C-alpha cells in the first residue's frame, strides 16, 4: 500500500456528483439502539425463497436462536433478534410494498439480552464447503442493500475462475455513513471476514475499494495490514455510483463485466464491507445475523447517528428514538439514490437496510417540478454508468414500446442507479419508466 494508490484517481466513466451530506453522521460512533417492545422479523428479507418458520405462537425464543430455516439453496435462515416470546406469525407490511409473512416477537423487558445461542468453532480448520454452509447458517445476505444470500455468491459457476475478492467500502450513496464507521471501528472483524471469504473462494488476493472522501478509513485499514498482506486497500474517486459492483471492478482492476454477466465472468467476487465484518465477527462464534448498523440521518432527523439496530425494529421506534422535525416529508429506507420511500411506519428494519433518511419538504420541492418534454440535452447519456441512452429509452417508454427498449437499447443493463433521473433538467421520471418497462417485459415473458 503505497501513497501512489492514494493519489491515483481510480475510477469509471460517467456517473454523477450529488451533494454528500455525510458530515451529519460521519464523525458519530456506532451506538446501540434499545430494543423495541415488539420486533417484526419478515421471513423474506432476502432475494430467493422465504424462510420456513421453526417456531409457533406462544413459544419463547432466546436471542440468537434460529426461528426460521432456509428453504433451499437460494434462501437463508432467520435468528431471534431478542429474547422474548413469539406472539404470532402473520402478514405484515414491508418496505417493498406487498405484505409478507413475519414472526412477531414480544421482547422480554427484564431480560439481559445476552446472546445465548452460539456454537463456537475454529474457522482455520474449516474447509471451503464448511465455510459456505456456515455463512448460510448465519443467515448472511448482502448487507449493502441487495440482500442476495451471501453463500450463493461464494459458489461462482464452475466455468468462472475467480482470482480476486473485491471488498466494497465505497458507500457512494449520499447521507450514508454506516460502512464508513464500521471500517473505522470494526476493522479487525472486517479483515477477519476478508480472510475467511478469501479461503472459501480460494483466491490469492483481496482489494478493498474506498471512496476518497473516506481517506481516514483507508489509512486505518492500511495501518492494520502487514507488509506482505494479500489484502490491499485503494482509494477510488468519490463519484456515484462508484459502489455499483461493475463500476468498482472497473475502477480497481480495469476489467469490464460483460453485459448481462456476473462479476465472476471476469474472475471477481464483490462483497460489501458490512457483510464481511459480520462474517468475521459471527462465523467463529457460530452466530446468526441479528442486528446491523443503520445510518439514521437527513434534514428531517433531530438526532442523526449510526445506530446498531436489532433486525425487526419497526421504523416508527427508530424514528421516535432519533426524533423528527415537523417539516419531515419523505422517509427513505436505504440511500436516497436507490432506496425505497416507505408508506407505513410499521415496516421493520431488515438485514438489507443500511440507512434511514428523512427528507424535508424543501428537498422534495425539487422533485415537484413539472415534467417537461425531453430537450435532448444528453446529460443523461453523460451520466449513465452503463453507457445507455436514457433519453431515447425515455421517449420509447412514453410510446409504450417496451420491446424495442429491451431488444435494441439494452434496457436490461439498467440497474436503476438513478443518475439519469437525477440530472434530467426536464424532470422526466426516467428510472420509473424503466422499472415499469422491465416489469411489463417480465410479465410478458412469463
Amino acid at each position, binding site marked *: 500500500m503505497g501513497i501512489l494508490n492514494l493519489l491515483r484517481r481510480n475510477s469509471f466513466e460517467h456517473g*454523477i456528483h*450529488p*451533494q454528500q451530506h455525510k458530515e451529519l453522521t460521519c464523525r458519530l460512533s456506532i451506538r446501540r439502539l434499545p430494543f423495541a417492545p415488539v420486533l417484526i422479523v419478515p421471513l423474506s428479507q432476502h432475494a430467493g425463497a422465504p424462510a420456513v418458520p421453526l417456531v409457533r405462537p406462544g413459544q419463547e425464543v432466546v436471542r440468537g436462536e434460529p426461528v426460521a430455516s432456509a428453504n433451499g439453496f437460494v434462501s437463508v435462515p432467520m435468528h431471534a433478534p431478542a429474547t422474548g416470546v413469539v406472539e404470532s406469525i402473520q402478514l405484515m407490511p414491508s418496505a417493498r410494498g406487498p405484505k409478507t409473512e413475519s414472526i412477531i416477537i414480544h421482547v422480554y423487558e427484564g431480560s439481559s439480552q445476552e446472546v445465548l445461542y452460539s456454537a463456537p468453532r475454529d474457522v482455520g480448520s474449516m474447509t471451503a464447503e464448511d465455510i459456505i454452509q456456515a455463512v448460510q447458517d448465519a443467515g448472511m445476505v448482502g448487507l449493502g442493500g441487495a440482500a442476495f444470500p451471501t453463500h450463493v455468491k461464494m459458489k461462482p459457476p464452475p466455468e468462472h475462475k475467480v482470482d480476486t475478492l473485491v471488498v466494497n467500502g465505497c458507500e457512494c450513496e449520499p447521507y450514508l455513513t454506516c460502512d464508513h464507521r464500521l471500517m473505522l471501528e470494526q476493522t479487525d472483524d472486517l479483515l477477519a471476514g476478508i480472510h475467511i471469504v478469501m479461503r472459501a473462494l480460494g483466491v490469492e488476493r483481496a482489494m478493498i475499494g474506498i471512496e476518497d472522501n473516506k481517506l481516514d478509513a483507508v489509512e486505518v485499514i492500511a495501518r492494520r495490514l502487514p507488509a506482505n498482506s494479500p489484502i490491499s486497500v485503494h482509494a477510488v474517486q468519490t463519484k456515484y455510483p462508484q459502489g455499483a459492483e*461493475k463500476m468498482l471492478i*472497473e475502477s480497481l482492476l*480495469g476489467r*469490464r*463485466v*460483460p*453485459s*448481462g454477466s456476473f462479476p465472476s465472468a*471476469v474472475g471477481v467476487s464483490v462483497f460489501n464491507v458490512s457483510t464481511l465484518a459480520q462474517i468475521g465477527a459471527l462465523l467463529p462464534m457460530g452466530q446468526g445475523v441479528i442486528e446491523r448498523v443503520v445510518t439514521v440521518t437527513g434534514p428531517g432527523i433531530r438526532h442523526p447517528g449510526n445506530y446498531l439496530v436489532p433486525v425487526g425494529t419497526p421504523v*416508527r421506534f427508530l*424514528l421516535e428514538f432519533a426524533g*423528527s422535525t415537523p417539516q*419531515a*416529508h*419523505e*422517509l*427513505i429506507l436505504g440511500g*436516497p*439514490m*436507490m*432506496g425505497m*420511500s*416507505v408508506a407505513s*411506519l410499521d415496516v421493520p428494519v431488515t438485514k438489507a437496510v443500511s440507512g434511514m*433518511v428523512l*427528507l424535508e419538504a424543501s*428537498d*422534495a420541492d*425539487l*422533485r415537484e*417540478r413539472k415534467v*417537461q*418534454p425531453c*430537450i*435532448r*440535452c*444528453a446529460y443523461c*447519456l*453523460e451520466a449513465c*454508468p452503463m*453507457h*445507455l*441512452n436514457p*433519453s*431515447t429509452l425515455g421517449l420509447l417508454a412514453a410510446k409504450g414500446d417496451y420491446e424495442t427498449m429491451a431488444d*435494441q437499447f*439494452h434496457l436490461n*443493463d439498467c440497474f436503476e442507479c*438513478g443518475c439519469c*433521473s*437525477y*440530472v434530467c*433538467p*426536464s*424532470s422526466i*421520471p426516467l*428510472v420509473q419508466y424503466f422499472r415499469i418497462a422491465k416489469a411489463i417485459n417480465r410479465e410478458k415473458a412469463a
Partner: protein
Amino acid sequence: METKLKIELRTSPHLKQTMTVEQIMRNVVYALLPVCAFAVYAFGISVLALLTVTTLTCALGESLFCRLSGKPNTTNDWSIVITGLLLGLTLPPGFPLWMAAVAAVVAVGLGKALFGGLGYNVMNPALVGRAFVQAAFPVAITTWTPAFLDKRFTEFIPSTLTAPFMQPPALGDWIEQARVDAFSGATPLALQKFEQIITPASDLFTGMTAGSAGETSALIIIAGGLYLAARRMMDWRIPVGVLLGAALTSLPFWLMDSVQYPDPLFVLFSGGLMLGAVFMASDMVASPVTPRGVWIYSLFIGVLTVIIRLFGGLTEGVMYAILLGNAISPLIATVTQPRVFGAAGKGPRT
C-alpha cells in the same frame, strides 16, 4: 408517544439536481445579450427595432399557437426568446420590420409549434424562419448596410420602416450620404467571392464589417460560447466540430489557389459561421443526442458550409448546412448509439 408524520411516497432517486430547462434556456439568452448589444452598437436603432420585433412576434406567436392547440402557455421556458433573438441576429440590419415579423411567425409556427413545441422540433426554428424569408424576399435579405454609420442612433435605415407588403427602397443613395469614412456596405463574404478582396481577420474578429445584425463580431460570440460551455449548457464539441470541419475543408482549396479561395482563418471568422456554430448548430433539441453522433453532425455542418460557400450560388451556406444537419440528426443518432458498458467484443480495458 405516537409519531404523527405526513410522509409522501415517491420512487427513487429521491435526490435531484437543481438545473432546469428554464435555467438552461435563460442562460443561453444571457450569452446572447452581449451579441445583441454589439449588434445595436454597430448598426444602431434599426437593429434594436429588428430584435424587438422578432422576439415579441415569436413570443406572441408561441402564446397564440399554445392557445390554439389547447396546451399550457410555454413562453415562460425562455426557449422562444432564444428563437426570437437568434432570428433577429441573422437578418440584415436594415431588414424591413414587417418582413421580420413574417419570419418570426414562420419560425414559431412552422419551425416549432407544428411539430409539437419545445423538444419536438426537428430543425432550429430561427433558421426555419430565416430560410423562409430568404426565399420570399431575396432582395431584402441580401441588402447590407455598413456598420458604424454616424447617424445610426438617430435615424432608422430607410428600409427598416417599409410599410407592410411594400418593397423596401434601394439603399445606395442613403448609404452614400450617411457614411463618412470608408466602411463598405458589401459583406466580407461577397467581397471575397466576387472581387477576391480579403477582409483582415482582425476586423472580422472584432466586428468592423458589414453583415447580418449579430454575426459580425466573432470575439463576442466566442465569449458567449465559452460561458455556455463552461456551465455545461452547450455541447462544446458542436462548435469545435463545425469550425474544424470548415477549416479542414477550406484548407486544401486555399493551398491550391490562394487568390480564388479564402484562407481558413477568413472562413472561420467571416459570415454567419461563428454565430451558427456557437448558437444554432448547438441547439440541443435539433442535434444528435449521442456523443459520436455529435461529432459527425458538427463536422458535416462545417464541411457543407464551406462547399456551399465555395461552389454554390450563395455567398453564405451556414444556414442551409445547419438545417440539413438538423434534418439528418435523428438518423445520425440512430447509427451512433452508445456502446453499452461491457458490450461483447470489447476486451478488458487497461
